[in-house]
């Protein structure tokens, strides 16, 4: 590599300088430098996209469907999403005005925040949470205000904790259930308490429901389906998790038309539209994907049961995660920090988990273990974790 001398001053935006690279990055670098590890550090399904979905995309290529679609996405796909949302989660959205197909839920989160946040606005972010939330709030000019949750409370959002953090600048709250990394779900009653507060203070809700289908003990309750919430909710979801389609980069946002129109402006200039081939795949997933999805969900549930029980037997206390595919055990009994635990476990036993603090301060004292791995890998991982914990616990 030649070293080109920089002949001009570097000009970076303050917003981008303010944010840190993801804490996951460091751990990824460490883990990928090692061989023969069992990874429970992966935030995606261990399935390949079901064949009929892949095949539909191949077919779209064969037919030469390779041009842009409408900015908001194929109307047929939006219609299918509309039917799906109403039949599965009792939240009705007009496919023409209230649904936008995005480049993953990731883009959905970005355009939702950018459409709502003004510089200086405070956005409550329930933690621990998906690593992108706080940085995306900052990039949109807002100030992320963490609202902690804890294992003692099953990682449910506590209304008092929200109240304490409300200021005149508070504009919105970010909710995500079932949750990454805790696997927590919110029941109707608990959610209704949050909803009442949200209405009282006239907040917008960003509700990331990408794990909605992966809810194992009870039916998922959508924030937008609660009384008085549809008007103020921007719902973000996608195909990555429930249909095993992470690499396709296709997701969607659903929101009242005023919000959808605003988001569409950003999406139209920044993205034009989501990938056409991926949209055809997503359409097939919506139309004929249920059986495969249900089979995957059943299998995650079995693995959740197995894995969480085994973690407890190994001596780690762990709440029962009702959804997603993560367990978030406490590792306090080992006397190690999350970072130390994850690093030592990786080096001594070759099992990769993610230290909890990368998901926000509330995650310290925990590690995230994804059970989207084969039973064989899980069994081996559990044995190794048990041996490790025994070493540190006495």
């Amino acid at each position, binding site marked *: 590599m030649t070293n080109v001398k920089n002949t001009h001053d570097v000009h970076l935006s303050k917003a981008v300088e303010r944010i840190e690279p*993801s804490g*996951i990055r460091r*751990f*990824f670098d460490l*883990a*990928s430098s090692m061989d023969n*590890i069992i*990874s429970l*550090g*992966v*935030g*995606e399904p*261990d399935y390949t996209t079901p064949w009929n979905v892949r095949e539909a995309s191949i077919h779209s290529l064969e037919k030469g469907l390779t041009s842009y679609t409408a900015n908001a996405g194929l109307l047929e796909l939006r219609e299918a999403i509309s039917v799906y949302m109403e039949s599965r989660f009792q939240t009705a959205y007009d496919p023409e005005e209230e649904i936008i197909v995005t480049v993953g839920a990731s883009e959905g989160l970005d355009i939702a925040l950018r459409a709502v946040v003004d510089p200086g606005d405070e956005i409550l972010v329930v933690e621990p949470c*998906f*690593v*992108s939330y706080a940085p995306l709030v900052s990039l949109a000019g807002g100030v992320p205000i963490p609202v902690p949750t804890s294992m003692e409370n099953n990682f449910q959002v506590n209304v008092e904790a929200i109240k304490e953090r409300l200021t005149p600048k508070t504009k919105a709250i970010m909710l995500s259930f079932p949750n*990454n990394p805790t696997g927590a779900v919110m029941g109707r009653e608990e959610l209704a308490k949050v909803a009442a507060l949200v209405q009282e203070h006239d907040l917008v809700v960003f509700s990331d429901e990408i794990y909605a289908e992966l809810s194992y003990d009870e039916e998922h309750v959508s924030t937008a389906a609660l009384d008085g919430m549809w008007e103020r909710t921007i719902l973000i979801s996608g195909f990555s998790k429930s249909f095993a389609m992470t690499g396709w980069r296709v997701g969607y946002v659903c929101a009242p038309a005023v919000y959808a129109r605003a988001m569409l402006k950003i999406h139209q200039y920044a993205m034009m539209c989501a990938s056409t081939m991926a949209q055809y795949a997503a359409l097939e997933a919506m139309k004929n994907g249920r059986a495969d999805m249900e089979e995957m969900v*059943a299998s995650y549930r*079995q*693995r959740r*049961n*197995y894995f969480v*029980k*085994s973690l407890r037997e190994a001596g780690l206390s762990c709440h029962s995660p009702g959804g997603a595919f993560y367990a978030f055990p406490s590792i306090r009994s080992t006397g190690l920090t999350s970072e130390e635990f994850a690093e030592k476990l990786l080096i001594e036993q070759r099992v*990769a988990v*993610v230290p909890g603090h990368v998901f926000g301060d509330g995650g310290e004292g925990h590690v995230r273990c994804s059970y989207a791995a084969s*039973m064989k890998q899980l*069994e081996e991982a559990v044995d190794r974790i048990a041996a490790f914990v025994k070493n540190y616990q006495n």
Partner: protein
Amino acid sequence: MTEKERELLLLIEKEGRMSAEKLAKMLDLQLNEIKQMLHQLESRNVILGYSAIIDWTKAVGTEIVTAMIDVKVTPQRGRGFDEVAERIYRFNEVKACYLMSGTYDLSVVIEGRTMSEIANFVSEKLSTLESVISTTTHFRLKQYKHDGIIFVDEDGADPRIVVSP
């Protein structure tokens, strides 16, 4: 049939050797509940047996030949196809036997060590049965998928990156 029974069956259909302990954990049941459930399903003949799926092409020196035979028969008064079907499926060489709709009546799967062994079976045992009108023998050349299991070697490597959000 309860939901848990169904779930148990689906699991052991895929992998019959799973230990009762593991099944109990996966289905969130007590060990004795699983044992009892298995016992009941066995005694009700819902579970008929436990077997392994083997790729014989890889077990050196044990190659077997499989043929699928379409059989046309004359049904018998009173017993329809059942009587002739029984006379066929009782043979040890017959691994499977189905009554079919369409251009022929019975579909019979035969296994043997050599092609001539199968040819002999067809010409001497099967075709000579009185109600058998005709047979068409198809030899199986390659097994891609059997009972839901894909036989083509796929590299089992996990393509996912080791740590992701």
